[in-house]
């Protein structure tokens, strides 16, 4: 401490200064190690559900066991990965599977049998029931469309 107050007594103030700087850098680096060592597990802990959901969205195919008996002009909501999706059985016996996440602000849209359209109640977005194309209201993009196959009485929905 006395060196600091009376620098004229210090034989080599320059080397003292560099030593001081070295200690500062070393203490800073050690502190950074501690912050990182504690921060990394905490970050991974908090991010855990996000990482799990990301691996769930990697899902390529969903098999719906009971869906083949779905009556005409009705729909079935199911989870494709972590996100809601819908399967529609049309009057002409064709099938459509689209994501149910509205492209506007992420509400869950639903099939309306009377209007034969997909409607999002949050802001009145309207999509075509056969293609998922955005036809009215605020949605900027069509709903993501999946491929539908009937295999042995089961409906297989897969990402295109």
């Amino acid at each position, binding site marked *: 401490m006395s060196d600091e107050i009376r620098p004229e007594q210090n034989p080599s103030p320059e080397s003292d200064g560099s030593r001081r700087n070295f200690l500062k850098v070393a203490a800073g680096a050690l502190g950074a190690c*501690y912050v990182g*060592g504690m921060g990394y*597990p*905490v970050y*991974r*802990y*908090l*991010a*855990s*559900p996000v*990482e799990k959901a990301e691996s769930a969205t990697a899902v390529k195919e969903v098999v719906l066991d009971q869906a083949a008996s779905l009556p005409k002009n009705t729909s079935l909501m199911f989870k494709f990965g972590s996100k809601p999706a819908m399967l529609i059985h049309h009057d002409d016996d064709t099938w459509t599977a689209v994501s149910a996440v509205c492209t506007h602000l992420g509400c869950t849209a639903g099939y309306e049998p009377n209007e034969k359209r997909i409607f999002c109640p949050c802001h009145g977005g309207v999509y075509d029931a056969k293609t998922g194309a955005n036809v009215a209201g605020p949605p900027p993009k069509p709903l993501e469309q999946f491929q539908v196959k009937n295999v042995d009485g089961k409906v297989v929905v897969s990402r295109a």
Partner: protein
Amino acid sequence: MPEPKKTNSGVYEWLDERLGISDIVELATHKRVPEHKHSFWYYWGGITLFFFIVMCLSGVLLLVYYRPGDEAYESVRQITYDIHFGWLIRSTHSWAANLMVASAFVHMFSAYFMKAYRKPREFLWWTGIVLLLLAMTFGFSGYLLPMDELAFFATKVGLSIPAVIPGVGPWISDMIRGGPEISSFTVSRFFALHVVILPALFIPVLMMHLGLVQKHGMSIPESEEAKPEHMRKTIPFFPNFAMKDLAVWLIALNVLALCAALYPWDLGPAADALKPAPMDIHPEWYFMSSFQVLKLFGNWFPGAAGEFIGLGIFNLGLVLWVAIPFFDTKTPAGKWGRRATWFGFFALTILVVTTVWGYAVLPPAP
């Protein structure tokens, strides 16, 4: 010494005028801490505080995934096995709890034998005892939250103790349990106690405890007090003592990290009320002494009488412990001062012997 830098920064001045920062800086630069051959014991309060801060932070992290009620066990299973590093956060919380209670005991006994409870520090002694009892209640309530087998039966035993109080005892036990048996209601109650009620009680008492240390300064032992004032050595609080304190905290952090990582806390099988209690059932180590004493008295006096007598002796000891500032008042120590020291050794011996005894007679885990 030149004035501490308070020029060159308009922001500093703006804040200082409104918040009085320079008063705090002034206090920190002029505050001095006694230094003598017993100074080692001054760090244990700070260590306890450090572990308490760790408890708060790791507790908030556990709160992110823990679900009280019916899902309690499943949520702790997820934290321990599914969530990344969940085992480490949980292990840190459990280890810090034990290390906190341990350092609180060291802090208490060092304050006792240095006679730090004497005038004007009686309220430091009493707030300290309140904090220790609250910390033990934290421990007891937290022990149940995972709802595994050991937690279930340890809590069952613990809650049957107040039931021996004549008259109101069974009612008290039922009210704490939220029913005649430990259930998801009990977990929800203990959860509310553990994360809301106890912190709301603990933090103001802790603030009072810390404020009083600030007001009265650290107590010095008699050997120091006997010296004339100019012979007593002191060091500045800032930076000297603060840096030493920081170094001690760093050691505490390393010990905690090693314990939590190398000896991760176990999760037993889910609680099942229809299974017999596990052979090695026991409470946390800081309840082991009272557990063993109750067991002994239960053997000597069959029925509820044994527990009642054991409980009575423990409470009498606690009352004497609280009242010690009234008996031991004189400096330098007279007859009562020496008696207080012997009483302290007696209490410490009983605690250590019954704790070791309790572990010695514990059957090994299956």
